[in-house]
């Protein structure tokens, strides 16, 4: 077997789940979340400080860097709690995509420059690797980094960069060799967001977050701004995408848990035709299917996270399978939760529609259902190929 199918959580992992659920239930009600959104800021600084105090901002970072050294499953469980509470703070951008890339690709000096502040909640990062023409293909890079004396001049355009406006540093991919769609020849740069030549066009996202289109126009960088191997960033980008996907899978499961819970509550309380909606069998059966969809999604996503945590050979396939599943069954489940509520669900002031929005946004990050399924089939064919040779 290439994957262990039994999911086992450690005592520490159960404690992390409990602590996260307790804190968010107390401090991150839906009303509180809407208040944060209405304030127009990227993050609530009090909340972010709490996350730092609880050690969450250093959760996946190595212990040697001041982190907790948590694995992909730890990250998944925390993200699951974030998903249920619809947390809007840029944890994914700063910690998962940014912090982990600095931790694995960065020099000692770069790590010292970024990570202590990040773990303490003072430094924010954004991951600027997608481009408009490339879509989900992060190796389709038109942004150029030209050698200039003992440094580089970077010019190009980065799309839908989450958390860009509040980030102190952007992690930017740029081509230093090869042609547009080559895997090789892409390098990562640590770019000060306020450096001359960096222009942001910020906007809100459908799911209540902040992102920006980022223009780089002759941004001058030194050799010590190169993050990881020159021309060889592909592995780092891929790792960030995989870990980011695991975090998103956690959020998606949390969203479905939240959507199911509020649907059950609503159907118990809402009276029509002289009785609670929860008495109608047509609706009860649909809620049963919603529960099953949530459980199936949870099983596949946990399996993917555990596979990554244990570096199992089938992990990439498990992640692709879960991502595809979330985009299809997860989306349908969230839509069903909206439908079961009726009119109240299509208002901005009620929670269930926001779960749907988040699930849709999750599907459009790092490759949607179709992309993920193609990826799965590709890996599966490769797997069958090796079986045939064996």
């Amino acid at each position, binding site marked *: 077997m290439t994957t262990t199918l039994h999911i086992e959580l450690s005592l520490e992992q159960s404690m992390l789940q409990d602590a996260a659920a307790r804190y968010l239930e107390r401090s991150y009600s839906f009303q509180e979340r809407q208040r944060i959104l209405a304030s127009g800021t990227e993050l609530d600084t009090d909340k972010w400080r709490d996350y730092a105090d609880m050690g969450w901002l250093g959760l996946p970072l190595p212990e040697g860097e001041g982190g907790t050294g948590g694995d992909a499953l730890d990250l998944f469980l925390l993200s699951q709690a974030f998903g249920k509470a619809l947390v809007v703070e840029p944890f994914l951008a700063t910690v998962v995509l940014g912090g982990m890339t600095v931790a694995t690709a960065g020099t000692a000096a770069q790590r010292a420059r970024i990570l202590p502040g990040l773990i303490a909640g003072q430094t924010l990062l954004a991951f600027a690797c997608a481009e408009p023409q490339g879509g989900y293909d992060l190796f389709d890079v038109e942004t150029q980094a030209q050698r200039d004396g003992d440094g580089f001049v970077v010019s190009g355009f980065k799309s839908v960069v989450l958390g860009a406006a509040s980030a102190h540093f952007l992690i930017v991919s740029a081509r230093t060799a090869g042609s547009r769609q080559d895997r090789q020849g892409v390098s990562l740069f640590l770019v000060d967001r306020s450096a001359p030549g960096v222009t942001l066009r910020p906007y809100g996202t459908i799911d209540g977050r902040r992102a920006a289109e980022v223009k780089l126009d002759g941004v001058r960088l030194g050799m010590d701004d190169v993050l990881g191997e020159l021309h060889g960033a592909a592995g780092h980008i891929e790792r960030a995408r995989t870990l980011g996907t695991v975090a998103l899978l956690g959020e998606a499961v949390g969203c479905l848990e939240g959507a199911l819970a509020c649907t059950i509550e609503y159907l*118990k309380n809402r009276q029509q035709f002289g009785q609670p909606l929860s008495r109608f069998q047509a609706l*009860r*059966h649909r*809620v*049963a299917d919603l529960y*099953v969809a949530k459980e*199936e999604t949870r*099983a*596949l996503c946990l*399996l993917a996270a555990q596979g990554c945590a244990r570096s199992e050979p089938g992990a990439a396939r498990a992640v692709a399978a879960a991502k595809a599943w979330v985009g299809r069954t997860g989306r349908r489940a969230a839509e069903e939760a909206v439908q079961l509520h009726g009119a109240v669900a299509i208002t901005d002031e009620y929670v269930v529609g926001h779960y749907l929005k988040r699930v849709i946004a999750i599907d459009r990050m790092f490759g949607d259902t179709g992309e993920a399924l193609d990826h799965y089939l590709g890996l599966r064919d490769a797997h069958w190929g090796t079986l045939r040779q064996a």
Partner: protein
Amino acid sequence: MSLAQNLEDFRLEVREFLAAKLSPELAERVQAGYYLSKSELDGWHRSLHERGWGATNWPKEHGGPGWTPMQKYIFEDECSRAGAPTLVMMGLNQVVALLMAAGTEEQKRRHLPRILDGSDLWCQGLSEPNSGSDLASLKCPAYLDGDAYVVDGSKIWTTAAHWANWCFLLVRTSNDGPKQEGITILLLDMKTPGITIRPIIGLDGMHSLNQLFLDKVRIPVSCRVGDEGMGWGLMKLFLGHERVSAAGIWKCKAQFARLTMIARNTRRHGRPLAENPRFRERLAWLEIHMRALEVILLSIINDPSKAKGIEASMLKLRGTELQQEMLAMMSEAAGQYAVPFHPEILRTGWTEEPVGPEFATTATPFYLFWRKSTISGGSSEIMRNVIAQTLFQ
């Protein structure tokens, strides 16, 4: 030695046994969905019994192998993979669970050894013409007359009644109070005078189901399990377990492997069906879905408190749907040869040149036969009721 290593060793042990005892011809017939004769099933039961693996769910002191849940899982997985026959499990699982929980010492002594070695084959008389999903509404009356109950009524959908020598019977001994009360469990010797068996021919043209007519059948009081009127509570002891096995996740895995193989060997417009983008996509979703259910199955296996709860209902609901979709695709892969129908071949296999590809002979009858999986053992609608009841309580 680690636990995982022990389990892998155990897996190899099961594989070796199957390689030695299961003939490739029989395995092929099982995987293709051919009908087995009673003597073929009895033969397989003997092989298992000789190895001490006839009753995997039994505790060691009663002659079971004393396996952990994970060992049972691996055993089922390997048996399905290899194409081992599925025994008629009514005796081995339900009757045994019942007798161990509520049987008298004399009942255990009389029945357990003969179930274990395969001398007795059991059927179950649960459903009635007017009591299907609402099983507790059953009416088949029994009244006490001296030292025997006299039973007068009918039972339906009784699998293997024409083979069985014992029947596990639910009867009504009282009409007072709620319908769940007044149900009694009796063990019926099928040689008792007054039993008529009417075969019911399935959509596949084959006979596996029956209707029983009981005409003043006398069943000794000593064949009652538990107290009079307490049958419903005892039934609940094993209904959940039935759901986990009815979900048939192991069989799904084996069917999927077969479907994939057939799709590779079947050509459409000069190319393997497995390379058709639409068929391929459906295969991928099936495989992913199956994986989800296997993870859920393992969570149940490793936490027995889930075996009778909402998780078991969920597994039965989706596992059977998945199995049906696979069989539908198998029939699709047969193309125009899904239409020719040869009921006489379903038991024996071809002795002459097959009409169309060999797998097509059984593909559609098998698909039709297994439409029952979402209906029997608690229909999908009942599973949804059970899940909703827990969610809304």
